[in-house]
C-alpha cells in the first residue's frame, strides 16, 4: 500500500537514480575489458541509456517537485527477519542439507509471520503442517521431478 504526497522532493527516487548512474558507469568501465567488440556493443548502449535516463530523472525531480512514493508502515524487524532467514537457509543448505535447512527456515518464518496468539492447537498444528510441506515438496522434487536437491556435507 502506497500513498502519495505532493510538493515534496522525491529523495528516494533521486537516490535510486544516483545509484543507477554509478551502476551504469561501472558497467561502462567493465565493457573496456572485453576481447570482442560484439560483447561490448549491447551492454555499452544499455549502460549509456541507464545513465541518460537516470540523470534526466534527477534533473526532472529537482525542476518539477511533485509525486513522492511514501512507504507504508509495518514491522521492519519482521521484514529483515524474512530476508535474513531465507538467505541463511540457502547458505546453510550445502552444509546441513535441504530438508534440515528447509525445516529450520519454515519454522523461523512461521514465527516471523505469526500475529495470532499461540494456542496449544496451533503449536502442534503449524510445525506439523510445516514438516509435511517441506518433506512433501522434497519428495516430489527429489523423486518425482528427479531434482538433485543438496545433501549436507556435515552429516
Amino acid at each position, binding site marked *: 500500500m502506497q500513498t502519495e504526497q505532493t510538493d515534496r522532493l522525491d529523495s528516494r527516487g533521486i537516490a535510486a537514480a544516483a545509484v543507477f548512474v554509478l551502476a551504469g558507469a561501472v558497467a561502462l568501465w*567493465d565493457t573496456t575489458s572485453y576481447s570482442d567488440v560484439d560483447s561490448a556493443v549491447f551492454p555499452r548502449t544499455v549502460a549509456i*541509456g541507464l545513465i541518460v535516463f537516470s540523470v534526466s530523472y534527477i534533473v526532472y525531480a529537482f525542476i518539477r517537485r511533485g509525486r513522492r512514493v511514501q512507504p507504508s508502515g509495518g514491522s521492519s524487524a519482521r521484514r529483515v527477519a524474512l530476508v535474513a532467514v531465507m538467505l541463511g537457509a540457502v547458505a546453510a543448505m550445502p552444509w546441513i542439507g535441504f530438508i534440515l535447512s528447509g525445516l529450520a527456515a519454515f519454522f523461523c518464518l512461521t514465527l516471523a509471520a505469526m500475529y495470532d496468539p499461540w494456542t496449544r492447537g496451533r503449536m502442534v498444528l503449524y510445525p506439523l503442517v510445516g514438516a509435511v510441506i517441506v518433506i512433501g515438496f522434497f519428495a516430489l522434487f527429489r523423486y518425482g521431478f528427479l531434482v538433485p536437491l543438496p545433501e549436507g556435507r556435515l552429516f
Partner: protein
Amino acid sequence: MFAEHFAQALTPLNIVFALFGVAAGTIIGSIPGLTATMAVAVLVPLTFTLDPASALILLGAIYTGAIYGGAYSAILLNTPGTPSAIATTFDGYPMAKRGDGDLAVTISCLASVVGGLVGAAFLLTLSPPLSEVALAFGPVEYFWLAIFGLSLISALSAGALAKGLMGAALGLLLSCIGVAEISADVRLTFGSQTMIGGIEVVSALIGLYCIPVLIDLVATPDRHLKVETEARGFRLAEALRLVWREKVNLIRSSVIGTVVGILPGAGGSVAGLVSYSEARRTAKPGQEYGKGEPGGIMATESANNATVGGGFIPTLVLGIPGTPPDAVILGALLVQGIRTGPQLFEAQGSIVYTFIAGLFLATALMLPVGLLIGRYAYKTIVTLPKALLVPSVAFMTIIGSYAIRNSVSDVMIMIVLGTLGWVLSRAGIAASPIVLGIILGPIAEQGFVQAWTIGSATGDLWGMFFGRPISLGIIAFTLVSLFYPLMKGRFARWRMRHAD
C-alpha cells in the same frame, strides 16, 4: 477425414491421458519456478512406451495445462508461475486484492481455452503457409519485436515513465551478466563465481515479483487477500459475460499468440506482453489496465495458450521448435519414429491429425479441470493463515528457483534481486520494467548484434535496421504503443477544454 482422427483421439484411454496431462500440467505450472518446459521434460519418459498418438496427446495436454497453470500464482500470489504469465499479474493480482480472485481465475481459464482452441485451429488449417512466417523473421525482426515488448513500459509506469525506462535499462543490463552468448566474453561478474552463470530469467521473475510480496506480507497482520463471507462459486456466468464483452480482444490476442508462437525463441512471455500492449492500446474509456481490468487477463492468457498450437506449426512442418517445450516434444517425436518436415502431414497424417484432435480435446478439458483446480487454489490461498502462507510460499520460491538449474547461486540471486526489487519499489521503481528488460534482453541483444554484424558486412546498416517491411511494421506498432497513451490523454484534455 478429420472427424475420423477426432474419433481416434476420443478413445477412453486417450481421454484419460488428456485429463491426466492437463491436471498434472496445471499443477506443475502453478508452482513458481516450474515451467511448462520442465513439466513436459519431466513427464516425457512416461510417453516412450505409449503408441505415438497417445504419447503426443499426453504431451500436448501437459504443455497446455502448464501454460494455463502459471495464471494461478500470478493472480493469487502476484508471482507468475511461468514466464508466459507475467502480464497476468498486472491485472490479475489487483483483481484478487479487491476480492475478485475467483472471477479472475475463471476468466483466465476461459481465455486460455479460447486461446488454445484458436492456436489449435491454426495448426490444423494453416500450418504450411504460416510456417513461412517463421522463415521471414530475421535477427533484426527479433530485435524490433523485443523492443516492441519493451514499449509496454509506458503502460506499466503510468505517471513515471522516466522511472520505468530506468528500470528497463537496469533489467537489460542485468540480462548481460555472465558469459556472452555470441562471443563468450565474461561480462559484469566482477570475478564472482556466483554470477558467472548469469541471471536465470525464472529465478529473477520469482524474486522480483514474489519476495516483495512476502516482505510486505510479513510486516503487517493484514490478510493476504480479501475473504468473502458468502460462497460465490466459479462465477462462470459473470466471467462469460465479461469474455463476450471482450471478444475482439480475445480473438486478436489469440491470433497474436499464434503468430508469436510460430517464431522460434519468442514464446509465451513475448506473446503475452505484445497482446497485453495491444489490448491496453485499444482500451475503451473507463477500462483501467494495470488496476484490475479483466481484459488484461484475457489478453495474456489467450495469447500464451495460443502459442501452444502456434509453436507446433514450425515444429511439425519445418522441424524447428517454436518454443522450448516444443523442443522437448520434438525429441519425443523422434523417439517415436516420427520425422518432422514438409511431408509429415502426408506421410504420417494419421498420427499428426490425431495429435491435433487430441490438442483440441485437451484444451476443451482444461475448462472443467482448470475451473475445479482454480477454485480450490483460490480457497486455499484465501483461507490459509499468514503464519503458514508466508513460509509455504517462501519455501516454494526457494525450491522452485533451485530446481531450474539445480543451483544454489540462482536461489541467492533470486532473494537478493527480490530484496532489491522491494527497495526500488519504495523509490517508485516498479518490478515489471526490470523483469521486461531481463526477459527481452537476450532476444534484443542477439538480434541487435547479428543485425549489426550483417549490416556492417553488407555496408547497409541503416537499411538493415529500418529498410525491411516487417521491421517497419513492428516499429510502427512500437511507436503507436509507446506514444498512444500520451496522445490519448492530451486529446482527451483538449476535447474537455473545447467542450467547456
